[in-house]
């Protein structure tokens, strides 16, 4: 699908009043995050492939280091404040789950998950989503819980923590000290994204280039 918010970049506002120092510091650090030394390389390859399929990145947008951000969480074994009684902690859950995914791929398609083509990879993911799995490893980690407590929330939380993902959805991004003035329907502050519209007098891309 064509980019709804052509040339809109939340980061263009980085040095404006929409960002305070704290925000600049944490987002800068996030963008610069690279994969920490956690999990085995084959496990990481499965995780990267999984992230690619759960949140396929739009063309023409800056890449999101979602896998690195997720690995950082796994390395820190950082929970969310609750754990389902039938699940182990974050890191162990991912270790078991990635192993199960890889085996599931081998049993279904004769090759590891990281090497599957998009269609095959998606069929494995659908199987997990529907609880229709056959690999024995799932006994160590219930597929439905791994799906709903780890795969989905962990991956989308990593992906939508990145300014590039904010830009693609036309989100205003950080907003402090400057917030917003025009709250009403169909109103946009000049520091917000403009959406592509066929009848626009000024093209959205032109407006978006002036967002500061």
């Amino acid at each position: 699908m064509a980019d709804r918010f052509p040339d809109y970049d939340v980061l263009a506002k980085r040095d404006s009043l929409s960002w305070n120092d704290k925000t600049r510091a944490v987002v800068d650090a996030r963008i610069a995050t690279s994969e920490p030394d956690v999990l085995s390389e084959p496990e990481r390859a499965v995780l990267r492939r999984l992230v690619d399929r759960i949140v396929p990145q739009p063309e023409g947008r800056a890449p999101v280091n979602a896998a690195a951000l997720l690995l950082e969480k796994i390395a820190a074994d950082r929970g969310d404040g609750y754990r389902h009684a039938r699940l182990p902690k974050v890191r162990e859950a991912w270790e078991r789950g990635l192993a199960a995914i890889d085996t599931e791929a081998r049993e279904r398609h004769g090759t590891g998950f990281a090497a599957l083509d998009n269609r095959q990879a998606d069929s494995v993911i659908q199987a997990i989503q529907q609880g229709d799995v056959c690999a024995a490893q799932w006994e160590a980690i219930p597929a439905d819980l791994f799906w709903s407590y780890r795969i989905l929330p962990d991956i989308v939380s990593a992906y939508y923590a990145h300014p590039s993902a904010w830009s693609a959805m036309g989100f205003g991004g950080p907003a402090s000290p400057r917030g917003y003035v025009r709250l009403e329907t169909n109103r946009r502050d000049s520091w917000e994204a403009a959406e592509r519209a066929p009848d626009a007098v000024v093209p959205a891309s032109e407006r978006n280039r002036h967002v500061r």
Partner: protein
Amino acid sequence: MSDKQSDGPRATGGRAPDVFTPGGWVPMRSHEDSEEVDFVIVGTGAGGGTLACKLAESGFSVVAMDAGPYWRPLEDFASDETEQQKLYWTDERIVDGENPIAMGSNNSGKSVGGSTVHFAMVSLRMRPEHFATRSKLGYGVDWPIGWEEMWRYYAEVEQALKIAGPVRYPWGPKRGRYPMRAHPMNAAANYLARGAEALGVDWTQTPVATLSAPHGKAHPCVYRGFCAIGCSTNAKQSVLVSWLPRALKAGAEIRDLAMVGRIETVNGRCTGVHYHREGEWHFQRARNVVVAGYAIETPRLLLNSANAEFPDGLANSSGLVGRNLMVQLNQAAWGHVEDDVRSYKGPPSLAVCEHWNYEDRGKDYAGGWSYMSQGPLPISWAKTLAGGRGLWGQALIDEMARNNHTVGLKMVGEVLPDARNRVTLTDETDQYGLRIPRITFAYSDNDRAMMAHATDFMDRSLEATGATDRWKEMGDTAHLNGTARMGHDRRTSVVDADCRSWDIPNLWVCDGSVFPTVGGVNPSLTIQAIACRTADRIRTMAAQGEL
């Protein structure tokens, strides 16, 4: 999370952070551990923080402890969902039962100021009849406090928090003028209003605890929309910026990063609390102990404090500590509209409909609910779409890109007390060596009937405004209440109307745990009203020598 206040506690050495000034400090009275203070309060949220202020202003010596850090919002808060996870209680808790509850960001704060640092500021009064559901409406259990008294305390809290609300409120008995005027409605709120008008029910601007005009050193709201992850402008009247500065001025001491692990008792009375701070355990002596840790940590502490005198935990002769955990139903209806809505602007819930709190006819279930307009932030919305609708891959990315055209209505619905929904202890321990809680929850048939009615009604409201591609989010819950309920009878409740334990006369519980029922409104205003009442009662009892 980059900033875990790694330099240790801030409120030490006779000073506490000035929340209104970057890098600033305010003087704070300090107490030695060996000094027997009048009150030690565990938790500084809506219950504990409010009570600390009111008790200090009444002249009692008060030490209030919080396991979380003492933030200065102006310099510590980012406009960033991930970073602001630091506001949540993310220590491990086990969830189970038929419908395990999402904790963490969903309902649990770990900061000085408690969950009010990240609450959505909705400040509604409970309907009068909801304080006596058993005798007036035939379900649940009655509160030991009458509604008129609670409504008087609501007025006090609304004044203290400078609640911005509508000039006329459409439901319930006449109430006084809100101290500040309602905020402008954003597009999302307008969709609620239009839908309500189409369906023939009243609506109004949500009374919210964020300033619509300057107040003291606090700025008015700038409509940045990050309310639920902490307000970086101090417009939000959290306990951190409202009651606690007053508490400090009145001589209360607040100890941040102080985790209370056990309450000590001797001869049936509390003598103080064991707390962990700066790497070691301390013991603060106190004449009275108030537990205000919210509906998980409160029963956890009472149960973890079991000793030879009280082998089943403190205040637990009824066996009800940890029982009757009540969340609130938080189901939603969502849809798409042609209009550019951009619900990320402004407080998330600027319009409310309380029709179904006040209308009992036409329901095949007991209880009330309200619903409000919504404005989820990206991560929260992505998790909703992924978890609630099963979207992933290109479908998720595409749907996220339509976020500016999404409108939603979300309910806050009354869950009935059920002793099977409860908090217990596991054998697993946390970083302090304390047993962690297990939270067991299942919806009842009544809950499901309410959900069905509410999601159907909200969906029709969206339909009436022309929304398409509508869907219902059926999984979410909000808020926590009821694990140390108050009542008239020591056999069926944990504390009395004054929040005083039936079993231990100098042990009090003052937070959402004491709710016998929850009604269909967000609980923060009610918790603060209870705290104000409790403080008044304590002052009266102290004057009469009844403490």
